[in-house]
């Protein structure tokens, strides 16, 4: 039986551009983090972004959800120019873009159930019973049904990441942004999270940007990869192409 990979999943999808970033620039003080970034992501595609710490990978995805305002450039997601949206329009687009934070970013003062109910609180068209059903389903998808009444502090690192993913997926987003999803996890849990990302791509047909340093995660999840260096895209290709790159610096990520 053929092993499931991101490439196999993508082969069956159409090639509609769902995210288009052009000439993106961002400077913090005198530090020019992003100089001229141009990226296109097709529907159902997983794009892995590699780069040294501080190379602006997280800034890139934070710009895409409007957490950071870029200095210049255009970011089109789901046919809307993100930087030109008013806050109400931006909020409705944000509901279609899932963001998994490095730490999981679970609300400490809420139980697992309340954490998952939080993104649904504004949806008046869904009844309370339906919301609870959605919560149970989301927990089942990540294998955490037994934790529903626990507090986030009672969960392990891997469980917090999976719960963060469940909270993000509860709104069934069309685009997923993962900020170092496997950082700080053991190899087994990292593989579980990577496979979950792949499962999400398959089940919900999401397009994703995955920021990672974990090459095992990149190998499982990437359809395409880009490498950021000094604020620009230094290289682009599939996992295999970049692994065999003639550039020693790029190859050093794979060693």
């Amino acid at each position, binding site marked *: 039986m053929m092993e499931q990979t991101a490439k196999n999943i993508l082969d069956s999808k159409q090639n509609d551009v769902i995210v288009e970033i052009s000439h993106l620039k961002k400077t913090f003080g005198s530090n020019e983090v992003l100089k001229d970034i141009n990226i296109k992501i097709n529907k159902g595609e997983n794009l892995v972004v590699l780069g040294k710490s501080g190379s602006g990978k997280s800034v890139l995805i934070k710009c895409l959800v409007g957490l950071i305002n870029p200095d210049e450039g255009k970011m089109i997601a789901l046919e809307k120019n993100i930087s030109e949206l008013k806050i109400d329009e931006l909020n409705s687009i944000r509901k279609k873009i899932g963001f998994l*934070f490095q730490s999981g*970013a679970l609300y400490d003062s809420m139980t697992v159930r309340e954490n998952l109910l939080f993104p649904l609180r504004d949806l008046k068209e869904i009844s309370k019973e339906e919301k609870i059903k959605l919560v149970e389903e989301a927990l089942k998808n990540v294998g955490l049904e037994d934790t529903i009444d626990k507090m986030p502090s009672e969960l392990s690192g891997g469980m917090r990441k999976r719960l963060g993913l469940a909270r993000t997926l509860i709104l069934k987003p069309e685009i997923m942004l993962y900020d170092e999803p496997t950082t700080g996890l053991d190899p087994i849990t990292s593989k579980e999270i990577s496979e979950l990302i792949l499962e999400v791509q398959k089940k919900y047909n999401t397009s994703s940007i995955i920021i990672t340093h974990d090459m095992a995660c990149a190998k499982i999840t990437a359809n395409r990869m880009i490498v950021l260096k000094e604020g620009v895209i230094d290289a682009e290709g599939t996992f295999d192409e970049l692994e065999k790159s003639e550039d020693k610096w790029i190859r050093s990520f794979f060693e």
Partner: protein
Amino acid sequence: MNSTVTQLSAKINKAKDALGKLPSKMENQYNVFQIFFVNVANFSIFTGRFFKEMIKPPYEFNELMKQSYLIGYKSLSLVGITGFIMGLVLTIQSRPTLAEFGAESWLPAMISVSIVREIGPVITALICAGKVGSGIGAELASMKVTEQIDAMEVSGTNPFKYVIVTRVLSTTLMLPVLTVFNDVISMFGSFAGVNIKGDVSFHLYFAQAFAQLSFTDVIPSIIKTIFFGLAIGLIACYKGYNSNKGTEGVGEAANSSVVLASLMVFIVDIVAVQITSLFIN
């Protein structure tokens, strides 16, 4: 001769050093002023945004109720114990002085006026600045560090409305309630203090205490606690929400929330007393 030249050159070098340090000292002072004014401007913008978001629907009633419970109900025991001890101590300390003038019978009236007009509101506000202010400052700074505020924002929720508006409104609404509670408990403390060295009936004590109290004592003191609560909530939320130094920033936000909120309580108090005296005296 040589030693004189050496002394002179040493003096010249010292003067040169002092001159060299002068611009950097001035620069530091300039930076301190600049930081101060930038903070004042940012705080004003923050306050303006609070009022704007407070008026604009949707309203977060459930979170407001939760925060009011946490800020108000959870502070009752601390405010109550402090109030009782305050009334008791104030009575014990004042009694000998009044006794010297043969004015012991004025004790309930004097204590009730001082508690209701000044000590009750200020002590309650200081307790809240310490307990609630540090709690809010640390909680928000920690939410910022762990990206919980960002997570709210990307899920399409307005974190300012959900986190800031509800907390500031809760402190504003709960402080008057806590002050009234503190005043009542303080009176009981004072009643206990009076009865340590005497035998005054409950009815007589409270009749005398309330005889000297009028609405012009009670209403302005309650109104000023609304501003105390607003100041505590705004400062604590501002410090927590704008914390950006990682885990170090959490402690700093909690600490500066308490210090600034306590200071602001006294500033608001002096302004309130001046305004009250304009209309009442």
